[in-house]
């Protein structure tokens, strides 16, 4: 057994232990902390599966942005729930039945894993064959923005729908106000330092990830999530604040990604062979053009989702 295999098995045990902790922990906050650690470990597993693009996404969204969302929610729930709340588990027989069901599901899935053909069916040769036509070097970016671009466009629409859903949960009197914390009168020094040093570097890294995403691991999702995190840190330090949900600019940026995507897709009818087709030779510049707007939209959508519905009165 090689050292790498020992490492893999240890990592697997660790991931499962932390996942079990998030399920069985008594305290909700402890469970959430476990989930943040879990996200980090999961991106290590993705690296071991040679899925570096996925590892990047999991690192930025799974452990970073989701961590802030969940810890914020756990903190707010703890405050709202003055009595300590209800953590009574269902009866022993129900739990036993649930455990049996879950073990059964796990065993069936493990059986499926064992019976998978190796090498399995694959679309990799197809993806490779047409890669030259797109001008890209990263097959995953090609899948996301060329072969299956319709899926990716709809996924951006899901993000916009989630924002609409979150905003519509605002109490009546706060409609038109802003979410999140107001700008601090005197920002706390430690946080302000971090929020001033980190973003220039983070913005550089985020844009780097989008740019190299055409040929190397990276892309609009990963870069956008990093940029989103940078905006979030300046808000957490009280240096910037979430704009009012009435802000034209905010709404425009939120829909810019999917809108540009649809526009380019429809233009394909006139200039190429059909909807969501790119004219020959122009695929790469068009893909980079769409990715630029998508990155911008993702960078704004994620913090808006984390901030939640508006909680402050509309300013005159």
């Amino acid at each position, binding site marked *: 057994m090689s050292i790498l295999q020992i490492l893999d098995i240890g990592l697997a045990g660790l991931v499962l232990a932390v996942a079990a902790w998030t399920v069985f922990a008594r305290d909700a906050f402890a469970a959430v902390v476990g989930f943040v650690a879990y996200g980090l470990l999961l991106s290590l597993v993705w690296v071991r599966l040679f899925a570096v693009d996925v590892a990047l996404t999991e690192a930025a969204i799974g452990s970073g942005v989701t961590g802030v969302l969940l810890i914020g929610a756990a903190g707010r729930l703890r405050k709202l729930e003055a009595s300590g709340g209800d953590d009574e588990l269902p009866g022993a027989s129900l739990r036993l039945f649930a455990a049996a069901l879950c073990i059964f599901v796990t065993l069936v899935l493990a059986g499926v894993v064992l019976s998978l053909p190796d090498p399995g069916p694959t679309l990799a040769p197809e993806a490779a064959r047409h890669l030259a036509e797109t001008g890209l070097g990263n097959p995953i970016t090609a899948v996301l923005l060329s072969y299956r671009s319709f899926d990716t466009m709809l996924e951006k629409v899901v993000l916009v729908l989630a924002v609409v859903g979150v905003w519509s949960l605002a109490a009546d009197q706060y409609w038109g106000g802003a979410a999140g*914390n107001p700008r601090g009168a005197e920002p706390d020094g430690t946080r302000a330092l971090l929020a001033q040093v980190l973003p220039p570097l983070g913005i550089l890294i985020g844009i780097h990830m989008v740019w190299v995403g055409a040929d190397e691991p990276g892309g609009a999702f990963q870069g956008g999530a990093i940029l989103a995190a940078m905006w979030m840190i300046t808000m957490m330090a009280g240096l910037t604040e979430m704009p009012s949900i009435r802000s034209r600019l905010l709404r425009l940026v939120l829909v810019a990604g999917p809108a540009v995507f649809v526009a380019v897709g429809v233009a394909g009818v006139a200039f190429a062979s059909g909807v969501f087709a790119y004219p020959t030779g122009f695929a790469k510049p068009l893909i980079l053009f769409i990715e630029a707007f998508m990155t911008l939209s993702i960078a704004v959508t994620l913090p808006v989702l984390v901030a939640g519905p508006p909680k402050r009165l509309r300013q005159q």
Partner: protein
Amino acid sequence: MNDFFLSAAGIILFTVAVGLVRVLSGPTNADRIMATQLLGTGGITSLLLVASATGVRGVDDVALGLALLAAFAAIAFVDNVAAPDSDTSKGDRTE
């Protein structure tokens, strides 16, 4: 040399994993956050070692992304969980 890198990665990962006992036992929530902070640092370091040993492209970018976000959990914790009295100055201002 590669085997040495991998062994070091393994030792670091399991060391910080043992530190996760603090997530279980606490006693305070600050201890829990500290343990994840240590796991984050150790995870990034072992990622760098594994990247150097296996030579998979782009892994250093994963480590870079994780390093950028390393302080986020701690800041979110301090803002939301550790400061019950300062709540009025934060999210729920209704004046």
